[in-house]
């Protein structure tokens, strides 16, 4: 049998496939994105896979499919579950019929996120069972198990991954197809499915009864929770997820209770384990989630006094935590401390750069949002002042305006096209209806670019694929009541500047749509080529653009890296001395 080297996300997709899933929905977000990408990339598949405009819609589509008696999956990053929490908290009351698995991909260490919330808490909050794989094989194998639990107990089921599981590759043995035996079809049952108070009061006790049944199931689920007694029972470690791998790496001899079912916990099994070891530890990434449950059950256990509650774990942190020391082997040499940092940056030719160059020049307060353009905060542009979550820019601009009135600084909200579709529209309705004067700039690069150019309802990509219709941003914002609408090319600095200044003068809501496809998508050959001529004084004005293609030469003038340059022409516009020469491609 052939093993394949798969990421956790590829293996989750493979496991979903093996489970006979029919409907797959999500909104892209690192580290979850590739789960749906892999299913969408399958040819001749009978799986319906879509990118929804946000995670709430994604989960609602998945719930609708499950209630129709087919297996469905919603996949999202950890903060996406916040957006989907509303349907989640009541889908637990209605139950599912066809299996429903919600994949939450958490990001300890915040490799590509605004926080590192521990979504195991959602399992307890919603009374929903949660499975937690620790490598790609388990990612694949736990999917059919998750669907079986979902159908057996009539509940949504979480599968929680983390960045190190989703984005690690390990060898995977192909699994077998384990389809559902639920018959597709929608059964009308208002008492169970229409959650008006009188019906919901009848369902909540059922949720609690189900949780008791799941607790019993956890004790018997030997393929999910297992004790590895090892050769040394002086130390017993309760762990799971990627932390299990670090524990096995660091102490191969130790007794380990591996939790594949993160919630609810098998407390009898934990009691048996505790009785068989001298000292009991919990090794878990982020929150003391298991530790608190285990302590509450009356067991004497050590956890977060030895292991951090912030950031990712690592074999080193597990080792030093168990030893009670904090020695780092082979610590960094002096010179490393002086190395210049290398943060991520906007790509050469990025259309966002033109907008941020203008905002930086005008010195405006910029309410920011989530996407590649979050990098507008980085020097030298340094043109972002707040960033909280998807869609937060416009509401925060409104709040500042209403709080400070005439004393409010000149400001704009910037939001990407995909983010505006995700959760910006309602904030714009608020601004218009409540007589806000906020200037919103929609950075429309025709894709959800940061996560790999996924389609959204405002991009032409998906519409071409499906025959669906694309949402037109200008019609949309005019429909919401915005009368001051500007469309600009972000490669034209003067045009952007004029539009921003005009919008700021307007005593009403304004929207500027800065339209140009992501430079990584747009393969059109440039009309003009740019090079630095003899007039360069080395003043550095162009370098304020923060373009990676521009740098000082040893002679103190600027050079353009011909490999990196995409010939967007911003540097020529920024130059006060006409020192950057433009020539037509045909010349």
């Amino acid at each position, binding site marked *: 049998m052939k093993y394949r*080297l798969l990421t956790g996300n590829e293996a989750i997709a493979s496991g979903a496939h093996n489970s006979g899933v029919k409907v797959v929905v999500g909104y892209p977000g*690192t580290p979850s994105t590739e789960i749906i990408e892999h299913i969408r990339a399958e040819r001749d598949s009978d799986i319906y896979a879509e990118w929804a405009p946000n995670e709430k819609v994604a989960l609602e589509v998945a719930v609708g499919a499950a209630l129709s008696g087919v297996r469905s999956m919603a996949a999202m990053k950890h903060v996406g579950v916040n957006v989907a929490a509303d349907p989640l908290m009541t889908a637990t009351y209605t139950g599912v019929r066809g299996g429903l698995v919600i994949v939450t991909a958490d990001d300890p260490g915040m490799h590509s996120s605004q926080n590192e919330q521990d979504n195991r808490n959602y399992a307890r909050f919603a009374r929903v069972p949660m499975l937690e794989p620790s490598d790609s094989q388990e990612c694949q194998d736990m999917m059919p198990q998750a669907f079986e639990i979902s159908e057996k107990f009539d509940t949504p089921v979480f599968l929680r991954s983390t960045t190190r599981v989703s984005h690690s590759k390990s060898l995977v043995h192909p699994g077998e197809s384990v389809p559902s035996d639920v018959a597709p079809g929608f059964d009308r049952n208002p008492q169970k499915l229409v959650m008006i108070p009188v019906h919901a009061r009848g369902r909540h006790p059922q949720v609690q009864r189900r949780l008791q049944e799941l607790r019993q199931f956890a004790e018997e689920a030997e393929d999910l929770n297992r004790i590895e007694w090892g050769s040394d029972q002086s130390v017993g470690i309760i762990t799971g997820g990627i932390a299990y791998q670090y524990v096995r790496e660091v102490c191969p001899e130790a007794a380990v209770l591996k939790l594949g079912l993160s919630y609810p916990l098998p407390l009898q099994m934990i009691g048996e384990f505790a009785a068989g070891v001298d000292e009991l530890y919990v090794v878990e990434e982020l929150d003391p989630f298991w530790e608190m449950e285990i302590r509450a059950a009356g067991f004497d256990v050590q956890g977060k006094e030895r292991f951090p509650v912030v950031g990712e774990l690592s074999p080193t942190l597990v080792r030093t935590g168990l030893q009670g020391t904090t020695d780092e082997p*082979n610590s960094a040499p002096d010179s490393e401390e002086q190395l210049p940092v290398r943060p991520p*940056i906007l790509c050469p030719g990025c259309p966002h750069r033109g907008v941020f160059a203008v905002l930086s020049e005008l010195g405006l307060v910029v309410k920011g949002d989530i996407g590649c353009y979050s990098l507008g905060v980085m020097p030298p542009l340094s043109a972002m002042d707040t960033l909280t979550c998807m869609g937060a820019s416009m509401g925060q601009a409104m709040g500042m305006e209403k709080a400070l009135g005439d004393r409010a600084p000149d400001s704009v909200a910037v939001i990407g096209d995909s983010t505006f579709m995700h959760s910006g529209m309602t904030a714009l309705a608020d601004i218009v209806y409540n007589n806000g004067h906020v200037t919103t700039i929609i950075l429309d690069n025709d894709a959800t670019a*940061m996560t790999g150019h996924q389609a959204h309802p405002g991009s032409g990509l998906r519409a071409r694929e499906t025959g669906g219709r694309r949402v037109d941003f200008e019609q949309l914002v005019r429909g919401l009541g915005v009368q001051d609408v500007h469309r600009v090319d972000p490669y034209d600095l003067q045009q952007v500047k004029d539009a921003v200044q005009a919008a700021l003068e307007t005593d009403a809501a304004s929207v500027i749509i800065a339209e140009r496809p992501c430079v990584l998508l747009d393969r059109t050959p440039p009309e003009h080529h740019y090079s630095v001529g003899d007039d360069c004084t080395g003043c550095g004005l162009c370098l304020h653009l923060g373009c*990676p293609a521009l740098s000082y030469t040893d002679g103190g003038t600027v050079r353009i890296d011909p490999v990196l340059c995409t010939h967007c022409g911003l540097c020529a516009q920024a130059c006060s001395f006409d020192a950057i020469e433009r020539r037509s491609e045909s010349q």
Partner: protein
Amino acid sequence: MTARDRMQVNDVVVVGVGGQGILLATDVIANVFIATGCDVKKSEVHGMAQRGGSVESHVRRRHGCVHSPLVSPGCADVLLSFERMEALRYANYVHSDGVVLYNTQKIPTLAIANGEVRYPSGIEQSLRKRCRTVLPVNAMDVAADLGNPRVANTVLLGALSHLTDIPAERWEEAIVDRVPRSAGEVNRRAFAAGAAVAKDLMAT
């Protein structure tokens, strides 16, 4: 290729700048490791960090079972850096008998390009203080000599292959498998050129 240059390479850390092709290179290394009959794990970085930031990817193999997908500091047999300064940033991964193999190409950060800070000097000397074997490879020039600057990564993989006890054919197969068919020949030559550079460097 001399037998004394070869070592058992189990834990490799590959670093560089987002967009340099690090994921592809570590995929090749992982596939070569699988061909040796070992269990293999690798870790990758996706998302925001890929946008021109500092990037690391780890590959591990064991006869038996690899648990952690991460190499611990002080435990890498080889640190392969696609950029000069990044080699030093991650040098603490290598054990003192390990090898730092790096591309001498300098990619400035924005602050360096703007003239606010200088590109650090003395990288090779700093690396030599930490590690017995330091191999600077001018992969860009080697690739340019072959007529295709895009095969610099293959030059570096060729150099890496010379350090391992894994037959060159396994590496060549894994590389050719991952490049367009039309680029097969130039990648073969780049691989051989990289191995020859490593051999020369080990001899001095």
